[in-house]
């Protein structure tokens, strides 16, 4: 890999296999991130861009149009996205089945993670605590919606999620109430 463009990631210990050098591109790391403290913290960065992901990516698209000309830009930007690699990775991730050798009388944490995702509504927002539960959740949960997965990985503050989910739930209720005051339970 020559160049890696990372958008909205912190390159934390848990998600990089302990800051594995395999994550490093051969030539350039371009890091787009809203928190300036995360840029260049864990991997040397060639270009750091501080900003909201949506705004920065839109600006990048405009810049391509300006530099390359509208014709080439349209061709490149409108090219259908080939998601087959991501899809096959997701499929193997989801297909984790209970370990037949686990005949214990207690829940295997991995199976519990799977049962949680099967049992709770699709729009559930998960706030995960620091501890072994975080390792299980990061490894086995399928998170593909924005604003649905929160782990305080910055300083690893224990106790954050136990409190944050109350604020999260309240925020959801308020948003729902604004959108549809008649039906919201408040």
């Amino acid at each position, binding site marked *: 890999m020559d160049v890696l463009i990372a958008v909205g990631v912190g390159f934390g*210990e*848990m998600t*990089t*296999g*302990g800051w*594995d050098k395999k994550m490093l591109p051969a030539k350039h790391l371009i890091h787009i991130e809203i928190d300036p403290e995360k840029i260049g913290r864990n991997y040397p960065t060639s270009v750091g861009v501080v900003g909201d992901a949506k705004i920065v990516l839109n600006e990048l698209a405009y810049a391509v149009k300006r530099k390359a000309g509208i014709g080439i830009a349209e061709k490149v930007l409108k090219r259908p996205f080939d998601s087959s690699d991501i899809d096959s990775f997701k499929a193997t991730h989801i297909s984790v089945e209970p370990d037949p050798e*686990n005949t*214990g*009388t*207690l*829940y*295997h*944490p991995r*199976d*519990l993670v799977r*049962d*949680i995702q*099967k*049992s*709770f*509504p699709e729009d559930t927002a998960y706030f995960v605590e620091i*501890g*072994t*539960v975080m*390792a*299980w959740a990061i*490894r*086995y949960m399928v998170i593909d919606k924005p604003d649905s997965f929160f782990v305080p990985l910055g300083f690893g503050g*224990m*106790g954050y999620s*136990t*409190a944050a*989910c*109350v604020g*999260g*739930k*309240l925020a959801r*209720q308020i948003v729902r109430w604004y959108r549809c005051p008649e039906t919201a*339970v408040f």
Partner: protein
Amino acid sequence: MTGLEVATAADYDVPAIWIVFNNAMHGMIYHGMRSLSPPCPEGISSRFKRVDFAKVGEGLGAIGVKIEKPGGLTPELVQDVIKENRPAIFDIWIDGEILPPFGSRIKLIDKHFG
């Protein structure tokens, strides 16, 4: 170590739901010590008697659901709890002896402290 936020949620009628992966131990410490080579002697125990968090939750004003057996968490059960529209705690017993998927952490500890 924390958890009184449940009482706050009950006080303000915020129906948040907590799931406790009840392993009766400080799992990061327990597995971290055992995974070192040579393993760190347990010394002051990082395990303790399993706390009944369902009852703790009830005491704090939430619904308490205790699940002791694998497969006990089902969509039907979750729906029943959600319908109550109250804060709730699922206290789910897990097998804490299973090594969590955090191999990189062990490598790092071994490198710097081993």
